[in-house]
């Protein structure tokens, strides 16, 4: 009896040793530099979500501050879970259903990637967590379009279905190795870090949702002012910092292309912010903090698809153009009178289109040479412009149509728009039973 116990122990030890030996062999492929940077990037992109919560949270009225912050936070819960179950598989699996989205049973619950190391030298877990953060922030961006008037439960169902039917397919088309936009033209449609997948899809879906829901009570006659510009500025700052993970992390390496993307990101954010306050000063006389924050975002959104292919001068011009076009788009919105509450479309949708289309004029020559070599002949910027235009059009049409269908059906089961009573009482009290600023009153 005692002897057999010893034998058993010995076998277990042998197994353990041999299995650690196996891991050691795999570990030799890990590029620790790249892995370290991708881990950092993953954390930075996650930091953008509370950043967005603060940015949006400061811009609404005080009765809606927690509800608006929760729109971002609940996405961290819902989409993270969804991503592990099916999201990663739908985005990065093999084409199924004619390439509508992907599927790989190893990615279902991430059960088959426990020891996988990607060719880039990073564990697949790091890559899937990094990509998962993009899936989180995209539906959270949409919430800006219909802030202050949406039922919390309906919102939760909406982002779940939207993530499955809009984000995952788009992500698959643009970034999976067998996605059809990945192979469009000579070297694919350029979307380095998600101008099409993240910003255009979120912005356009936001616009559709805002039009479907109608405006807030009293808009635009009743003045609706930000409750706390201070947290909005803090949020904008966190978004800028987090964007280094978003863009420079999208190189999925730690090297030259990472540095190029990081530089382009910084330059575009700065030039966007400066351009916005200059335009604003000339138009209405004062440089506002909200204007500076909006300019940061416009510049960052525009450089998102471009960060891998433009040089600093190009990023600078993109930042300026994005602020100019987004500022004009918001003036047009005010004329048309639809209620895109926090300008999710005005900045993310419009800025994303500006970046994805106009980046074509600033592509570094080496990329063009590679594209020409890939196609085995000539490839000029007009060819690429066509590819970019097509990818953007597909993203806009797909996001708009699908969002409309999702909301129309969902609205039959749960009223998407808050009731008048809930809206007047504020999202905080109606859906969360809390107050954001108890300290304003003695209690």
């Amino acid at each position, binding site marked *: 009896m005692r002897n057999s116990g010893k034998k058993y122990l010995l076998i277990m030890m042998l197994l353990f040793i041999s299995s650690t030996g196996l891991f050691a062999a795999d570990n030799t492929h890990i590029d620790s530099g790249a892995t370290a940077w991708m881990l950092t990037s993953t954390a930075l992109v996650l930091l953008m979500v509370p950043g967005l919560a603060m940015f949006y949270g400061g811009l609404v009225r005080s009765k809606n501050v927690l509800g608006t912050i929760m729109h971002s936070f609940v996405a961290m819960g819902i989409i993270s879970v969804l991503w592990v179950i099916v999201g990663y598989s739908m985005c990065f699996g093999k084409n199924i259903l004619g390439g509508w989205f992907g599927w790989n049973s190893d990615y279902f619950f991430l059960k088959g990637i426990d020891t996988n190391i990607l060719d880039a030298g990073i564990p697949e877990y790091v890559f899937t967590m990094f990509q998962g953060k993009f899936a989180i922030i995209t539906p959270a961006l949409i919430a800006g379009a219909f802030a202050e008037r949406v039922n919390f439960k309906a919102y939760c169902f909406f982002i779940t279905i939207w993530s499955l039917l809009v984000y995952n397919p788009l992500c698959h088309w643009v970034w999976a190795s067998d996605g059809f936009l990945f192979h469009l033209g000579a070297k694919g449609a350029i979307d380095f870090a998600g101008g099409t997948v993240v910003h255009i899809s979120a912005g356009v879906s936001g616009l559709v949702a805002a039009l479907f829901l109608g405006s807030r009570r009293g808009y635009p006659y009743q003045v609706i002012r930000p409750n706390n510009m201070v947290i909005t500025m803090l949020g904008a700052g966190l978004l800028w910092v987090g964007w280094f993970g978003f863009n420079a992390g999208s190189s999925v390496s730690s090297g030259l292309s990472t540095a190029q993307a990081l530089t382009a990101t910084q330059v575009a954010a700065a030039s966007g912010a400066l351009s916005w306050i200059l335009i604003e000063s000339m138009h209405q006389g004062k440089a506002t903090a909200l204007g500076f924050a909006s300019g940061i975002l416009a510049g960052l959104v525009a450089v998102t698809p471009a960060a891998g292919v433009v040089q600093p001068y190009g990023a600078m011009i993109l930042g300026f153009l994005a602020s100019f076009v987004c500022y004009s788009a918001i003036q047009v919105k005010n004329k048309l009178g639809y209620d895109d509450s926090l300008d999710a479309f005005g900045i993310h949708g419009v800025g994303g289109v500006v970046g994805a289309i106009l980046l074509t004029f600033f592509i570094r020559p080496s990329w063009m040479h590679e594209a020409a070599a890939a196609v085995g002949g000539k490839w000029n910027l007009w060819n690429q412009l066509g590819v970019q235009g097509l990818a953007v059009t597909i993203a806009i049409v797909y996001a708009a149509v699908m969002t409309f269908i999702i909301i129309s059906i969902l609205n039959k089961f749960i009223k998407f728009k808050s009731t008048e009573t809930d809206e007047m009482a504020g999202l905080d009290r109606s859906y969360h039973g809390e107050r954001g600023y108890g300290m304003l009153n003695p*209690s």
Partner: protein
Amino acid sequence: MKLITAIIREVQLDKVREALIEADIKRITVSRVSGHGQQRIEEMYRGQIIVPDLIPKIRIEIGVNDAFVDITVNAILKAARTNGEGNVGDGKIFISPLEECIRIRTGERGGTAI
């Protein structure tokens, strides 16, 4: 001249303002206040029921000439009462005599300054 002070629910502020503007009463002062009357509300804090001692309310102050007292009061009553027949916690209206009213810019006094 009278000073009308109304304590209303926070939620009803928009409706009361709209009603007052409709009745052509546009000069008002609004503040956040806390207090308690008959109303008792229960809130949840980490799964536990708590009853806050003081409930947040909105105070509206309006100085009016005598002819406008009823118009103002009716507008507030109509807009601040909830669900048609009213609920505990809808608030109160106080009317007190107003001795003098002075417009700081011009120094004029009395009813025309309101």
